[in-house]
């Protein structure tokens, strides 16, 4: 069982408060959605959680251990995986090699100067790619993939480190509707199967309300609602934020 406890996270950019006092708890088996209009601070929130940005104040604890102040690679090593909103993979490598890199990093074998990298951890990498439906494209260069496929490679890379907590920033952006549902179903399955704790942002409301166990709503850097999908859907403040009406 893992538990990510976020308390009163704050971050401003030159006087503009991007994230102002966000608190929540993420546990194993949770599939927590973070939603909100553009500019609500979702991506900033993610960057604060994985160490890419340092919060002005607040704390992020993984099983009691403070993560604030650690660099991204240390937080990753503690079991917090991440996928990016704008996809970032190693474009000069094949799909399989991208996943192999993570496995090599996990095994602390990156400083090897002798044995070819392409031959190491290939089998487990292929298994992971099979799991996300990318097995047939394992030997294609990552730089030429369709956007939705890159997202799936990112998921395989995130899973390769066997995280206990997974942060997914818009995991289905750029995908066709059928693909979206498949990916969300896969994610939900992984949460059940491995007891993963997943926090994800999403613009597609079908994906959010169809799969999330709980939903957080962010508006202008603050949490304005939290609860089950049905509770959040019924919340008048959430409706006003999304529909622009008066609360």
């Amino acid at each position, binding site marked *: 069982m893992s538990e990510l406890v976020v308390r009163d996270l704050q971050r401003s950019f030159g006087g503009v408060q991007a994230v102002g006092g966000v608190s929540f708890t993420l546990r194993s088996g949770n599939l927590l959605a973070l939603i909100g209009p553009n500019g609500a601070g979702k991506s900033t929130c993610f960057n604060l959680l*994985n160490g*890419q940005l340092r919060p002005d104040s607040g704390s992020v604890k993984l099983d009691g251990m403070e993560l604030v102040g650690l*660099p*991204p*690679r240390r937080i*990753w*090593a503690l079991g917090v995986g*991440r996928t*990016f909103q704008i996809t*970032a*993979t*190693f*474009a*000069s*490598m*094949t799909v399989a*090699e991208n996943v192999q*890199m*993570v496995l*090599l*990093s*996990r095994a602390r*074998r*990156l*400083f*090897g*100067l*002798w*044995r*070819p*990298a*392409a031959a*190491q951890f290939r089998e487990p990498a292929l298994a992971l790619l099979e799991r996300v439906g990318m097995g047939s494209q394992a030997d294609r*260069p990552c*730089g*030429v993939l369709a956007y939705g496929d890159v997202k799936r490679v990112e998921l395989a*890379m995130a899973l390769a*480190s066997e995280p206990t907590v997974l942060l997914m920033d818009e995991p289905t952006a750029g995908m066709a509707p059928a693909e979206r549902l498949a990916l969300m179903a896969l994610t939900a399955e992984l949460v059940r199967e491995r007891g993963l704790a997943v926090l994800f942002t999403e613009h597609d409301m079908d994906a959010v309300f169809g799969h999330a166990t709980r939903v957080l709503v962010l508006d202008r850097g603050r949490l304005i609602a939290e609860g089950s999908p049905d509770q959040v859907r019924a919340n008048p403040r959430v409706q006003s934020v999304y529909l622009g009406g008066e609360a």
Partner: protein
Amino acid sequence: MSFLLVQALSGLATAATLFLVSSGLTIVFGVTRIVNFAHGSFYMVGAYAGWSLIERFGGTPAGFWGSVAAAALMMGVLGAAMEIGLLRRLYRSPELFQLLGTFGVVLVVQDLTAWAWGPEDLLGRRAPGLKGSVDILDQPFPLYDLVLIGLGPLVLGLLWLLFNRTRWGTLVRAATQDREMTSALGVDPARLFTGVLFLGCALAGLGGALQVPREAVTLHMDMAIVVEAFVVVVVGGMGSLTGAFLASLLIGQLQAFGILVFPQITLVIVFLFMAVVLVLRPHGLLGRADEAPPTAPAAVTVPLSAGPHAGAWALALLAVLAAAPLVAGDYALILLTEVVILALFAASLHLLIGLGGLVSFGHAAWFGLGAYGSALLVKHLGAPMPLALAGAPLLAGLGALVAGWFCVRRSGLYFAMLTLAFAQIVWSIAFQWYAVTGGDNGILGVWPSAWAAGKAAYYWLTLGLSGGALWLLRRAAFAPFGYALRAGRDSGLRAESVGIDVRRFQWMAFVLAGTAAGLAGGLYAFAKGSVFPTLLAVPQSVDALVMVLMGGIQTVAGPLAGAVAFHLLEAKVMSMTDWWRLALGLIIVALVLVFPKGIVGFLSGFRRRR
């Protein structure tokens, strides 16, 4: 006391010239994002043109100042021409191509200048009406220098008015902040950029023409000033005019007083100052983070692959090379030895550029450090060749360990500048520390041991050591280490988020590349029997870049092909002409414009098309 005051004043006069030149460089960089290596050439030609005009018309104050102004305007026109002919085609190229392309212009201009004005240093006449000196606290100080001191702030003021009070200046500032936006507003960026190059190069020309009464006009002015101007621009913050002014003042004083304290290593002080500023304030004194140059675009998206029979080909090549002494004569063997050494040198640079995306502009430092390491061990300690050869990669690797710690803190153009700075530090030590390094005279009598003294024996030794090192580099490129390096280049963000300490891998690569280059340098020292400071100088670094570029950045075999092509070209073609700089410069410009993927890249692209 009065002596110190005069020293400070002469520092101010130096600062004024530095500011004129570097303001032009920083303006051009701010708008075009190109670091113009040829900026110093406009300074030099400005001085030569100024000299000719002043000789003819400079008898009266009006004639003198008119000549200076005319020289500046001429350089402005030449700068605009360079924008139209060359830079315009490079705006979207990787920074390596921009730096190399403008360096090609440096070489061309050097030979054309020598052709037009001859190789002798020229002494100009003094400025009419300003020939004397004034007494400042009983110390004489040249009147002309006082005028220069006033000119610095005057030009800063005029530029400020130009940029803040005219429509054109406002557009230039807008383009500096957001190029795409400006063209969206209906401004023709091409004309704007041409205008900016005119202004920047005119300022360089002005700085050069104003030197005529102060010092001899020489063919070495260009590199000396442009490297100093780089330092000023980097210290002040790239693109910042006030930053350049402030940095000029600081560096002017540093030079004026540094020469009193450490006359041997004035150059070192300036470059150390730059390195320290960059570590403390990464964007320079007045630079802003968002004005930082973009890092190398991830142009390389082709997976690196070994090819189906790479191992077999390599063995076959090695066998052919090993058999060469059976048929080749002494001259051919000397040539081959050098080619093999240069291949190792180029391959070591390729590790940084091709895998790490780190464009080093000072790789000669490690080659030269290796060469000097061997030579010094032989000369001062009487070391036998094997020991001296072992010392070469060690010394170079150690130097790279220290310099690398600074350099990998920054990426893109700043990395290029930092590596250049460290190379200049090492060069100036070799050049100025006469007692140990022999200065300009170098170190002679670095000959191999008796068993390796024959041309064939030394060739085999070189082939064995270089081949072994090349093999190790290649293994490393395909091992997890090389992949991790590429991961950091492809996406630093992603690499860090899967546990890859990008900076540490870059540092390691820097040390590895430095060590390999050091071995090449050591072998080179014994092949030539002597070492000179030119082994550490900028042109040597550029040679390595040209070899890598000729071979193609995307291929592991590229540097080898590049070294062969480059060295044969150098030995066969350029030795036949006195104008080798012109030839090399034109080759570089052509390479950058026509063959951006290099020989191997071009051939494989050709094969794929068929």
